């Protein structure tokens, strides 16, 4: 049974996450533009100023109609019947038929409307909720430590050591973990540096730091992906769910009360959750990251939206049909947004993992440090695995060395 303080912690966490909920943009009421012949009215301007969501299709579609073109003999004939305002609107909404000399994939997109929405999301909800999620998680871990303290073995340590992770597994773990920490820090640096680092060190010092951080982020990403593949290959067979996981979960893994040691093999249910979260989030963040590493070369969202639309998932969830005709920049903006959201979820999970693997639990770091754990520790946290190890050792002794 979970003690009362932990319920209070959960309530505190919920309150923390719900606190920064802001006011969402409201739809502007329908505006009568008959007095202006369909052009913007004062109500449009006021709606924009109060940040109401405005349907601006009256402008984006008003870019001239060849059928209505005035003949060349008319005053507007030299423009082919299209006014200068209509030309500007065509440029504004990226609907003008243009030719550019640059040959990069997105060079012919002169104005990309989604950029402002992306920037507003990145500087607003993404930073706010992401930042609160990290602060909330750290606060929660401190609270957990204050209530539960360091989880120690109930029985006395035996001094007898058992090899828990061989060197190749430890190498893969640290390749993944070390690169993740570098990627997390440099990613946060890119997102929050403007707000927190520039006021401390100034613009001139921040510029090389930002460039260096970006270099680290872009290139260390490959080590992360190699580590992810290694960890998947080495541990996937140990992380298939089994009946013991239900017992482990039923008592909260014994994390919340002393003397409770549910049975577990090499990985317990909590570690399996972390493992599958790392694999799924790691894969997702890698794919979106590679898309960002090669700008415009590997767009993924238009194709993803197409697949989602075809199975009807967005429609069921109330998002309607997702757009599949995306400007190159829009695809990159969506990739960056997705990459950041996944990163925040990932960091929150890994913070809990780092806590339990270091200060939170006596002897846990040894498993990934030296690779060896005390027999008593193994008995309490991975009893079934210890039995397997002992059985194997016993069999090996009985068989004896080959002659």
């Amino acid at each position, binding site marked *: 049974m979970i003690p009362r303080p932990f319920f209070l912690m959960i309530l505190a966490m919920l309150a923390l996450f719900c606190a920064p909920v802001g006011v969402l943009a409201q739809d502007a009421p329908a505006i009568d533009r008959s007095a202006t012949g369909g052009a913007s009215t004062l109500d449009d301007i006021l709606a924009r100023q109060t940040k109401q969501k405005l349907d601006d299709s009256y402008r984006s579609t008003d870019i001239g109609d060849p059928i209505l073109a005035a003949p060349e003999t008319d005053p507007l004939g030299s423009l082919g019947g299209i006014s200068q305002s209509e030309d500007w609107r065509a440029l504004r909404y990226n609907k003008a038929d243009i030719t550019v*000399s*640059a*040959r*990069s*994939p997105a*060079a012919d997109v002169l104005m990309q409307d989604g950029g402002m929405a992306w920037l507003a999301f990145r500087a607003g909800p993404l930073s706010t909720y992401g930042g609160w999620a990290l602060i909330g998680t750290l606060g929660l871990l401190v609270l957990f430590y204050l209530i539960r303290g360091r989880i120690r073995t109930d029985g006395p340590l035996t001094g007898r050591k058992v090899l828990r992770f061989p*060197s*190749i597994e*430890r*190498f*893969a*773990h*640290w*390749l993944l973990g*070390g*690169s993740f920490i*570098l990627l997390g820090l440099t990613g946060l640096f890119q997102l929050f540096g403007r707000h927190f680092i520039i006021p401390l060190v100034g613009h001139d010092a921040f510029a090389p730091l930002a460039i260096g951080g970006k*270099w*680290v982020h*872009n*290139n*260390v*990403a*490959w*080590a992360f992906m*190699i*580590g992810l593949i290694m960890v998947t290959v080495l541990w996937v067979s140990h992380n298939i769910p089994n009946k013991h996981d239900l017992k482990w979960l039923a008592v909260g893994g014994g994390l919340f009360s002393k003397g409770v040691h549910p049975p577990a093999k090499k990985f317990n249910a909590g570690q399996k959750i972390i493992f599958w979260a790392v694999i799924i989030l790691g894969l997702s963040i890698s794919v979106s990251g590679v898309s960002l590493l*090669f*700008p415009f*070369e590997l767009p993924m969202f238009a194709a993803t939206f197409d697949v989602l639309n075809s199975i009807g998932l967005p429609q069921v969830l109330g998002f309607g049909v997702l757009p599949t005709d995306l400007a190159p920049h829009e695809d990159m903006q969506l990739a960056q947004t997705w990459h950041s959201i996944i990163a925040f979820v990932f960091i929150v999970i890994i913070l809990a993992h780092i806590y339990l693997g270091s200060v939170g639990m006596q002897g846990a770091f040894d498993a*990934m*440090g*030296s*690779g060896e754990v005390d027999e008593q520790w193994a008995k309490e946290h991975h009893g079934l695995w210890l039995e397997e190890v002992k059985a194997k050792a016993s069999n090996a002794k009985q068989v004896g060395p080959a002659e």
Partner: protein
Amino acid sequence: MKSMYLAFLAIAVVAVVAYFGLGYAGFSAQDAGSSPSVRLN
């Protein structure tokens, strides 16, 4: 702890190899989006 330090070293090696390797192979955004001459057609 040797495995941990070795992994940290490997991260640095992979990063440097990725940077120079991808640049040498022409997988750089700068190379992909530019050329010595500009087409004016």
